[in-house]
C-alpha cells in the first residue's frame, strides 16, 4: 500500500531498491514469451494520467464485467482504490507471475514504478449451488457441492464456524496443477492420519486429475481390491459431520465430490439422511442396506447352487414349481443366470449412457420386453427374472454408487463359484469376501472397524443408528485426539 502513498516516497524507493534485482529481470517481453501461443492471454496497455500500465490476464478465466469493475475502472479513476485490494508482493519472480496469471488473477504492471500488482479477478462461469442427483435426500439440507473449490470450502465454513477448522493446500497433477485442499478439525483429528495423507499426496505423481475419484484410487491402501476404501460424497452436511468426528476431508478444484478418510466398511452404508430420520427408521433402513449388499451377492448364485447341485434342499412343492417354470429352458442354470445378469447390466449401461428421456424408455421397454419375451421364448425361467430383478435392486440400496458397482463385480465371482461347487463354492467365496474385508485398511485403519478391531461404542453407529444421546463418543475409526472442542471465548 505504501507504494502509492505520496507522502512516503522515501519508503517506496527503499522497498523497490531492495527488490530491484528481481524486478529488473522481469520484463513484459519475458512474460509474453512464457505465455506464447496461448490465445486468451491478454496484454493490454492502458495510459493513465501520468504513466503507462499494462494489465495481463487470461480472458477465459475472467468475466469482462469483473475485470472492468475491479481493474480498469479504478485504474482510470482512482488508482489508490485499486491498490487497496491489490496484492503487491515485495518480491516476485517470473514463475510466480505466470502461475498467478494461470490461476485467473490479473497482473497490473506499472511501467514507471516497475511494480507488479496482483488483483484477484478469477471469475469463470460456475454452476450454482443446487441439490445433488446422485445423493438426494427427502429431508435434510438439499445443497450439494459444486465444481469450485472456493465455493465448496465456503459451504463447509458456513456449517462449521470454528477456528480449529484448518485446511492445507497442495498442488497435484504434474500436468494439470490441480489445487486440492485437505480440511480437518485441528483439535480432534489424529495427527498420524494427517501425516499419512500428506505423505500419500506428496508421493503421487500423476499427470492429471479430472475428479477426486482418481486421487482416491491413487491413495488406496489396497489398489487391487474391488471395494472402495474411501468415501466420496457431494453433500456438505455429510462432510461436516465427518469432520466433526475427526476425519480428514480432501477437496479438489473442479471436482464435485469430496473425499473422506479414513472410513469403515459400515460407513459405506450410511446416508446423511439417517441422522435426520428418527433412530428407529434410520436403523431399519440401514440394516436393510447392509444386509441387502450381502443378499444381493448370494441370491442368484443360490439359485444356481440349488438347481445344479442341491435340488434336495428345496421343499417338494417349491422344487416342483421351479422345475415347471424352468421346464422348457434348455440351458444349465449358470448360463441362464449369466445371460439374465448380463442383460440387466446392458440395460443399466444403455440407460445411463443415453439421454435421460430415451434412457428411461430403454429401461422400461427393454425391461418389460426382454423380461416377458425371454420367459416366453423359454430362454430363462420367470422365477429367475424375479430373483435377478430383486438382486439388481438390492445392489442399488447402498448410498455409495462405487460400492454398488463393486457389488455387481463381486456377484460374478459368487456366480462362478456356485456354478462350480454349489453351496460349498459359495461359502468359500464368502470366506474370501469376509477375509478380504478384514484385511482391507483405509489410511492404515482396519476397514472392518468396529467389528475387528472392536470398539464397543462404535456399534451404536454401525448397522444400527442408536439415539443420539447414547452416541457421545467419537468413532474408533477416526482415532481422535481429544473429545471436547476448545471453548469459544465470548465477549461481554
Amino acid at each position, binding site marked *: 500500500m505504501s507504494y502509492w502513498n505520496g507522502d512516503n516516497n522515501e519508503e517506496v524507493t527503499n522497498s523497490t531498491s531492495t527488490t530491484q534485482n528481481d524486478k529488473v529481470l522481469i520484463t513484459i517481453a519475458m512474460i509474453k514469451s512464457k505465455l506464447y501461443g496461448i490465445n486468451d492471454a491478454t496484454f493490454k496497455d492502458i495510459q493513465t494520467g501520468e504513466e503507462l500500465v499494462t494489465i495481463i490476464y487470461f480472458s477465459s478465466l475472467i468475466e469482462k464485467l469483473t475485470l472492468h469493475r475491479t481493474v480498469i475502472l479504478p485504474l482510470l479513476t482512482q488508482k489508490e482504490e485499486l491498490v487497496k485490494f491489490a496484492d503487491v508482493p515485495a518480491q516476485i519472480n517470473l514463475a510466480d507471475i505466470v502461475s498467478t496469471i494461470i490461476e485467473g488473477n490479473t497482473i497490473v504492471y506499472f511501467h514507471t514504478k516497475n511494480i507488479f500488482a496482483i488483483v484477484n479477478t478469477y471469475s469463470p462461469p460456475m454452476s450454482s449451488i443446487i441439490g445433488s442427483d446422485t445423493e438426494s435426500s427427502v429431508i435434510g439440507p438439499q445443497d450439494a457441492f459444486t465444481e469450485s473449490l472456493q465455493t465448496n470450502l465456503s459451504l463447509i465454513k458456513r456449517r462449521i464456524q470454528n477456528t480449529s477448522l484448518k485446511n492445507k493446500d497442495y498442488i497435484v497433477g504434474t500436468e494439470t496443477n490441480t489445487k486440492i485442499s485437505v480440511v480437518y478439525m485441528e483439535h480432534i483429528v489424529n495427527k498420524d492420519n494427517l501425516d499419512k495423507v500428506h505423505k500419500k499426496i506428496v508421493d503421487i505423481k500423476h499427470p492429471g486429475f479430472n475428479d477426486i475419484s482418481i486421487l482416491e484410487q491413487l491413495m488406496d491402501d489396497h489398489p487391487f481390491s474391488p471395494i472402495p476404501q474411501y468415501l466420496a460424497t457431494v453433500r456438505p452436511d455429510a462432510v461436516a459431520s465427518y469432520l466433526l468426528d475427526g476425519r480428514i476431508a480432501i477437496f479438489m478444484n473442479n471436482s464435485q465430490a469430496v473425499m473422506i478418510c479414513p472410513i469403515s466398511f459400515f460407513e459405506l452404508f450410511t446416508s446423511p439422511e439417517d441422522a435426520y430420520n428418527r433412530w428407529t427408521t434410520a436403523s431399519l433402513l440401514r440394516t436393510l442396506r447392509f444386509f441387502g449388499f450381502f443378499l444381493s451377492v448370494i441370491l442368484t448364485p443360490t439359485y444356481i447352487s440349488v438347481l445344479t447341485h442341491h435340488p434336495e434342499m*428345496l421343499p417338494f412343492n417349491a422344487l416342483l414349481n421351479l422345475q415347471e417354470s424352468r421346464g422348457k429352458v434348455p440351458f444349465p442354470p449358470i448360463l441362464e443366470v449369466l445371460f439374465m445378469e448380463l442383460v440387466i447390466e446392458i440395460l443399466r449401461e444403455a440407460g445411463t449412457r443415453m439421454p435421460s428421456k430415451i434412457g428411461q424408455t430403454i429401461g422400461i421397454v427393454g425391461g418389460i420386453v426382454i423380461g416377458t419375451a425371454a420367459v416366453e421364448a423359454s430362454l430363462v425361467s420367470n422365477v429367475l427374472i424375479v430373483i435377478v430383478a430383486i438382486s439388481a435392486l438390492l445392489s442399488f440400496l447402498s448410498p455409495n454408487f462405487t460400492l454398488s458397482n463393486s457389488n455387481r463385480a463381486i456377484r460374478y465371482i459368487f456366480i462362478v463359484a456356485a456354478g462350480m461347487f454349489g453351496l460349498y463354492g459359495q461359502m*468359500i467365496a464368502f*470366506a474370501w469376501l469376509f477375509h478380504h474385508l478384514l484385511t482391507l485398511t483405509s489410511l492404515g485403519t482396519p476397514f472392518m472397524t468396529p467389528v475387528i478391531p472392536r470398539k464397543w461404542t462404535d456399534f451404536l453407529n454401525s448397522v444400527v443408528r442408536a439415539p443420539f444421546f447414547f452416541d457421545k463418543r467419537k468413532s474408533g475409526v477416526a482415532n481422535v485426539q481429544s473429545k471436547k472442542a476448545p471453548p469459544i471465548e465470548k465477549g461481554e
Partner: protein
Amino acid sequence: MDKDKFKVLNRYHVVFLVQNVMVGTSILSLPNRLSSMGYSQWWMPLLFGVIANIVLIPMIWLALKYRDDHLFAIHEKLLGKWLGKSINIFLVAYFVVIIAAVCASYIQLIQVVALVDRTITGPLIILLLMIIYIVNGGIKSVARFCIMAFFLTLGTVFILKWGFVEGEISHMLPIFNFNAQEFYTATKNGLMAVGGFELISFYFPYIIDQRKALKHASLGIWLCVLLTFLFTFVSVMFFSEWQLKHLIYPVLNLFKEVELSFLERIDVLGITLWVFLILSTTAAYLWAAKRGLDSILSTAKSAHLYMIVIAVYLVVQIPFMQEFQKLLFERIFYVMYVMFVWPILLCIIHVMKPKRTRG
C-alpha cells in the same frame, strides 16, 4: 500389513484363536467316538476341558520363560541344535499330516453330503488356496478370521433346538454306567476334540498381554468345551445308544432333524457353513507349520508356505493304500496327545538345565 509388527494379538484374538482352532470336524463325530460309554458320555467334554486347562498351564509357564520364542526355537535352545531341529522336522511333518487329515475328512463329508458324485480335487484345491490366502496375512489375519468364523457359525447352535425338543432328558441317567475299559476307549478316541489349543506355544511370542494369556486361553478352551458339551448333550438326548454307536456323524444327523417350511436338508447348509471352522483350524496349523519350516531352514520365505501346501495336497491326493491313509489320519491324533504332555517334559529340562545356558 501386520506382518512387520511383532506383538499383534490382543486378548480377543487369543480367546478366539484358541477356541476356533479347537473346533474342527471332530465335534461332528464326537458323540460317536465317545459311544463306548453309552449315555454316560454327555459330561465327557467337561472332563476334556479340565484336562486341556491343566495341560495348558505348563505350556504357558514354559512360554513365559521364553517370551520371544516359539516352540521351534525353544526346542533348539533346550535340546541343542541337532536334536531340536530333528524334533522340529517331525513336528512340521505332523502338522502337514494333521492339516491333510482335517482337510480330507471335511472334503469327504462335503462329497457325501453336498457334492455327491464329484471328485474331491476341485473342492480340495480351492480350500487350500483359501487357506493360503488367510495365512498370507500373518497370524493376526488368522485370528481375525477366527473371530469372524465364530460369529458366522454360532447360528448352528440353533439347530440343536429340534434335537432338544424331541429328545429324552432321561437319557442322562445313570451317570456312571461304564467300566474303566470303556472310559479309556472313550477318552482315547474323544480327547482329540479339544486338540488345537496347544498351538498357543507357537503364537505365544505374538501375544501383546502375555501375562494374561493363560486367562484368555482358558476362556477360549471353555468356550469351545461349552459348544462341544452342548452338541454332545443334545446328541445323547436325541439318539438311542445303538444310533450313537453306528452313526459316524451324529451331529450331522441332528442337522437333518431341522424342520423348516422353506428349506429341507439343512445339513447341506450346515456342512458347507462348517468350512469357516475348517479354514480357521487348518490356517492356524499351516501358519505354525510355515514357521517351523522357516526355523528349520533358518530363512523366512513365502515359498515355504507353498511347499507345505503342496505336501498337504500330496498326502491327501496320492493314491496311498486307502487303508494306510485312514490309519495314518486316525493315528496322527495320538501325536496330539504327546503334544499335550510334551511341554511338561520341556519344563523339566528347563529347570534341570544349568542357568547360564538358558535362553
